[in-house]
């Protein structure tokens, strides 16, 4: 007999959803002068809320507010005082965790299990960690008197809306900078609630500004002459445009861009653990993760057995209502992204790879893509080279450790990698040779505010977290 799960939905009412949201400039929610947008729930494609967006004049007003706040209030303020504001914000994020988790799931489509257990707690942890740095900067090994850069313009993507906002806001404010944040067009809500939390915490006006809008608002922000630093997380393509745009301006820049991580499974790995890690690596957040383990490199002697176990495990993943606590894989964030995944998967078929699709049931409406595995993948195929940003795994095999390293590093990206082996020396040997900002050995997708995260090569430059992350916000 087949056992089924009873539905276990979280209440959407917890999100406290309002019909409309507005930009946050100079300590107040104001009417933006851009064309308002409708943010939708990707699990149903139903509208969630109207969101006012910023015009060029709003960008200008926000940067001006941030400049005034930086020079008059936030910059001169003692680190002890700055710290207390950040602690307050961190605390309230934790207090309102359930609301934020539900809101994020509604707006983004990711499972409540992930927003509840990863996004919101990690965002709060980043704020806590950096709060503690604010009054200890002279001990951070960044020189005797680290000084803020000034005004930071930050543009964050739709895959971790709250977490990425916290990753930028926390170090920027801890080091005495003020910030203008542009959340992604399809996921503006949690950043605006974060602004509300900051206002409730009494954060001085102008220290944090949030400007919803599309790429044009982002472009107006990063090109604004009043900024001292730009912090961008997103695609390599846009990152390159920003780096070109900032050429010759002397403004500081950090870029967290795309990736095409390899998960290397040696034949001596603990196979069930490795299966879990590979599944987590590519299906966490529907694969909408810059550091997703989108290429599995499995050693030939175990390839067949490993793939069998992997397919069996993947077939058990539940795809569906993101608000259901039993859901493993949620909705694709937007129709445009779903189309991109469909196109790239079709390229895999066309180039001769073998597609396997999980036999899981899919909801009848909403934006979903079933967990998919391609085997017989060649290194030259698009599915092995391009970032798919979806629940699609490409499998390659190798014979020797040298071959594994050569294949893993055969990409201009260099963000992350995974290594699975029971032999510690082999794990470390491999980690030393991989070109990646983060290497997870016998684990995957771990994040912590004390651990620097970021890429090399075309995955960008700069780190978030740890002392190295702080360094990007001081002179």
């Amino acid at each position, binding site marked *: 007999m087949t056992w089924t799960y009873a539905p276990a939905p979280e209440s959407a009412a917890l999100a406290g959803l309002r019909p409309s949201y507005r930009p946050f400039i100079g300590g107040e929610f104001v009417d933006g002068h851009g064309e308002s947008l409708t943010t939708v729930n990707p699990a149903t494609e139903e509208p969630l809320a109207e969101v006012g967006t910023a015009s060029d004049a709003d960008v200008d007003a926000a940067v001006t507010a941030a400049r005034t706040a930086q020079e008059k209030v936030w910059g001169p303020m003692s680190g002890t005082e700055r710290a207390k504001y950040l602690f307050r914000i961190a605390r309230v994020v934790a207090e309102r965790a359930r609301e934020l988790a539900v809101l994020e799931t509604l707006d983004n489509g990711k499972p409540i299990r992930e927003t509840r257990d990863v996004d919101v707690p990690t965002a709060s942890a980043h704020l806590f960690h950096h709060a503690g740095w604010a009054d200890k900067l002279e001990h951070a090994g960044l020189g005797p008197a680290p000084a803020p850069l000034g005004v930071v313009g930050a543009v964050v993507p739709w895959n971790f809306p709250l977490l990425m906002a916290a990753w930028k806001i926390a170090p920027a404010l801890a080091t005495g900078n003020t910030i203008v944040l542009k959340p992604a067009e399809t996921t503006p809500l949690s950043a605006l609630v974060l602004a509300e939390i900051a206002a409730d915490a009494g954060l001085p006006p102008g220290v944090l500004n949030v400007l919803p809008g599309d790429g044009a608002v982002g472009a107006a922000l990063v090109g604004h002459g009043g900024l001292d630093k730009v912090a961008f997380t997103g695609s390599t393509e846009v990152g390159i445009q920003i780096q070109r745009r900032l050429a010759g301006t002397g403004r500081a820049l950090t870029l967290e861009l795309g990736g095409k991580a390899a998960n290397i499974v040696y034949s001596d790995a603990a196979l069930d653990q490795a299966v879990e890690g590979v599944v987590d690596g590519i299906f966490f957040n529907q694969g909408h993760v810059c550091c997703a383990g989108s290429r599995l490199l499995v050693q030939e002697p175990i390839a067949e057995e490993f793939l069998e176990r992997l397919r069996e495990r993947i077939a058990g993943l539940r795809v569906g209502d993101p608000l259901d606590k039993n859901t493993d894989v949620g909705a694709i964030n937007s129709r445009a992204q779903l189309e991109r995944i469909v196109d790239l998967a079709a390229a895999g078929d066309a180039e001769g790879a073998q597609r396997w699709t999980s036999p899981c049931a899919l909801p009848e409406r909403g934006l979903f893509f079933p967990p998919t595995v391609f085997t017989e993948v060649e290194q030259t195929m698009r599915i092995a080279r391009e970032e798919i940003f979806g629940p699609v795994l490409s499998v390659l095999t190798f014979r020797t450790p040298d071959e594994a390293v050569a294949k893993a590093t055969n990409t*201009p990206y260099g963000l992350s990698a995974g290594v699975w082996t029971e032999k510690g020396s082999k794990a470390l040997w491999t980690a030393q040779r991989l070109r*990646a*900002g983060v290497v997870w050995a016998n684990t995957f997708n771990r994040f912590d505010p004390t651990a620097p995260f970021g890429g090399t090569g075309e995955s960008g*430059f700069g780190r978030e977290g740890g002392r190295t992350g702080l360094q990007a916000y001081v002179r």
Partner: protein
Amino acid sequence: MSTESRVTVAKTHKLYLNGAFPRSESGRSYPVRDTGGRLLAHAALASRKDVRDAVAAARGALPRWSGATAYNRGQVLYRVAEVLEGRREQAADEVVAAEGVSRREATAVVDATIDRWVWYAGWTDKVATVLGSVNPVAGPYECTSTPVPTGVVGVLAPQGSSLLGLTSVLAPVLAVGATAVVVASQERPLPAVVLGEVLATSDVPAGVANLLTGRTAELAPWLASHAEVAALDLVGAPGDTAVDLERAAADSVMRVLPRPTAEPDFTEPPGIGRLRAYCEITTVWHPVGT
């Protein structure tokens, strides 16, 4: 006979590329004059192909140099100081000729240069301690962050400070385990030629440091647009080209040290900014359990 003096052996100046001293593949050379306009010599006028060869050499040398122990790299850099100490007189001659300074000032420049090699020699095995970390993550994991060399670094050497400035921008690249392709000062290339000879006899493996002489503005775009170059130091870039070079570098998300408004005073303590600039931080996680 007393009026007749010996005819000196005129030296042909060449590139320092992959541990050897080739002429430019283009066969070109250019006249190098002292600050008074007197012809000193002809130097090799490097070409686009020389840049590509140098990058290939630097790329080839990277695994061995970045994989060498920090202790070993420190000894090699100290050896550079030792060999330069032995060539102090010659180096001072070249600085006098190139920069038009007094013999005394040139000697001070050479001494400061030697001391700078010693300073960076001492950094090789301290970079990881100072820039790396053990991360106290909230979970049962061993988590460490280690600086690793970024790869091949393109350097446009300072145009004014032809030996001390050159050393100040080259030595940090080598100290962290990266490899370098350097375009020497265009008008003052001869101290770089001497330094190449020092490097060649200092146990620095072939390809780790490559010194090209020629026109900076002609060579720089090929460095800035080369996908195998990981970082670019624009300190000696011609002012009107710096923005274009930054744009070209963006296409491969190259790390860029922007051109300062004025050439830095290289007699000042250098700080660790350049060491940091050529390191990537790699964070490695591993579960802890039984």
